[in-house]
């Protein structure tokens, strides 16, 4: 009796998600089957509900898969698709390699320091993302901080800005908190007596780590990797600002199609393809999340 009443609280969030999240996807799907015209809004056919059922029929007849056909014909889309997945995958791997030692290091610290360090990991996340990426331009550009520093020790100069390396650096930098926190959450929860038991049974500290700590932390690693991979695959700001013209990623393609080319159907079709690709990792993420929370 009490339970169902708490369930009533779900009504408003439910409606909100339906209107502002679920329903718009249908619109994206619909638009991806339309074609471009020089008008406002720049696509056809349009659904006019005032015309009733006949209007709906003409609307349906006007839909076509031509935009998708265009996607398959142009190499650019396939290249962008593949490099999005490759860069996001690579960045997720790098994030694991870099984030794990940090999370593990924090978990080993005394409780007071742990709290402050977790805070320190979150803090940059509270400052503007755009600004933090912008800071990397100043560091990586040819006459930037990095090359100045390398020059002092007689090295360089290196050309990093406007390459894939710069995009990877930016991604790792921006998403590091999202990798460290889930990892830290599982590592912090680990029962210290498990390690002691392993060592008591003859394991060296290193093998105790590999055989006990590491396997137990895998759910956190999976959650962190997915939490980063999914939005990174559609990332726009980082490839746009750090990647130069040669780094193609789907987020940028959607942005360019939409803002520069005013090709709304193409932007929608690319979004649908990206979404279809990400459904599997999203479902995996939700499974992991449910496990972590239960």
């Amino acid at each position: 009796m009490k339970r169902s009443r708490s369930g009533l609280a779900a009504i408003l969030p439910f409606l909100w998600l339906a209107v502002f999240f679920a329903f718009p996807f249908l619109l994206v799907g619909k638009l991806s089957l339309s074609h471009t015209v020089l008008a406002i809004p720049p696509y056809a056919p349009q659904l006019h509900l005032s015309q009733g059922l006949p209007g709906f029929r003409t609307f349906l007849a006007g839909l076509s898969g031509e935009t998708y056909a265009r996607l398959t014909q142009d190499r650019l889309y396939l290249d962008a698709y593949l490099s999005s997945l490759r860069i996001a995958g690579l960045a997720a791997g790098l994030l694991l390699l870099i984030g794990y030692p940090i999370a593990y290091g924090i978990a080993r610290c005394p409780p007071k320091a742990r709290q402050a360090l977790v805070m320190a990991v979150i803090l940059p996340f509270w400052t503007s993302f755009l600004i933090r990426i912008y800071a990397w331009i100043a560091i990586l550009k040819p006459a930037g901080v990095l090359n100045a520093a390398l020059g002092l020790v007689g090295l360089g100069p290196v050309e990093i800005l406007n390459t894939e390396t710069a995009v990877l650096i930016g991604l790792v930098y921006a998403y590091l908190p999202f990798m460290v926190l889930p990892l830290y959450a599982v590592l912090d929860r680990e029962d210290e007596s498990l390690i002691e038991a392993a060592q008591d049974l003859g394991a060296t500290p290193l093998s105790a780590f590999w055989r006990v700590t590491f396997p137990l932390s895998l759910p956190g690693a999976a959650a962190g990797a997915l939490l980063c991979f999914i939005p990174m695959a559609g990332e726009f700001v980082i490839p746009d600002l750090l990647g130069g013209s040669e780094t193609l990623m789907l987020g940028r393609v959607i942005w360019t199609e939409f803002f520069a080319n005013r090709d709304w159907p193409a932007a929608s079709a690319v979004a649908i393809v990206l979404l279809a690709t990400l459904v599997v990792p999203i479902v995996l993420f939700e499974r992991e999340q449910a496990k972590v929370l239960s």
Partner: protein
Amino acid sequence: MRRGPSTFNIASVVLGMAFLYAPIVILVVYSFNASRLVTVWGGFSTRWYAALFQDQQMLDAIWVTARVGVLSATLATLLGVLAAVALVRGGGFRGRTILAGGIYATLVMPEVILGLSLLLLFVAAGLPRGFWTVTLSHATLTLAYTTMVIQARLGSFDISLEEAAQDLGCPPWKAFALITLPVIAPAVAAAWMLAFTLSLDDLVIASFTSGPGATTLPMRLYSQVRLGVDPKINAVSTLLIGVVATGVIAVYLLRQRRAPA
């Protein structure tokens, strides 16, 4: 007993923190650089701050962003409280999985997709794009974050406190308002702050859903950044970082003092 950190552990943490903070420190330092070039230290100067406060477009953008942030964060927090109550207390109500799934999906959804789909919604609904469309979009974007923060706190909330209030004569809604809300208030405030900063920070969704007269600060910054490094941006960034850091650290210290372990 927990083992202390090894040298490797300490090195990882120190390097990680250096990586996280170096760009921010560089940004702050160069906002006081008299020279326009990042590699040349032209002496200490606040000229970029002065220039910033004469840039009316920038100031307008800051004002729009602040209003959008406050409104959307408030909306997202209200929705987040409701969603968290449903998820934590709802037990086995139908659609709990769908609600949780929808919320986590907005959390990871690439912003480009979210922005595009929201734009199409507003076009279809015939809403003129501007202040309100950005606000609604930002509430949608940040709803997942507020829900997660409040859900975590509500999950560890001792339900017997609410029962005690009912036992002493409070109807359920009043027990929630008099006991639960004040107790979880720090988490609700943190959720609001998080939503506010996310809104302050968003470029992609604002670009899609905003219209004339509602240019937000990130949109303004983005168009400036594309034109090249401008020390004025360093100045505005430093101000932003200062405001947020002060707020976050103040909240953190306050909570430390309030809740001795």
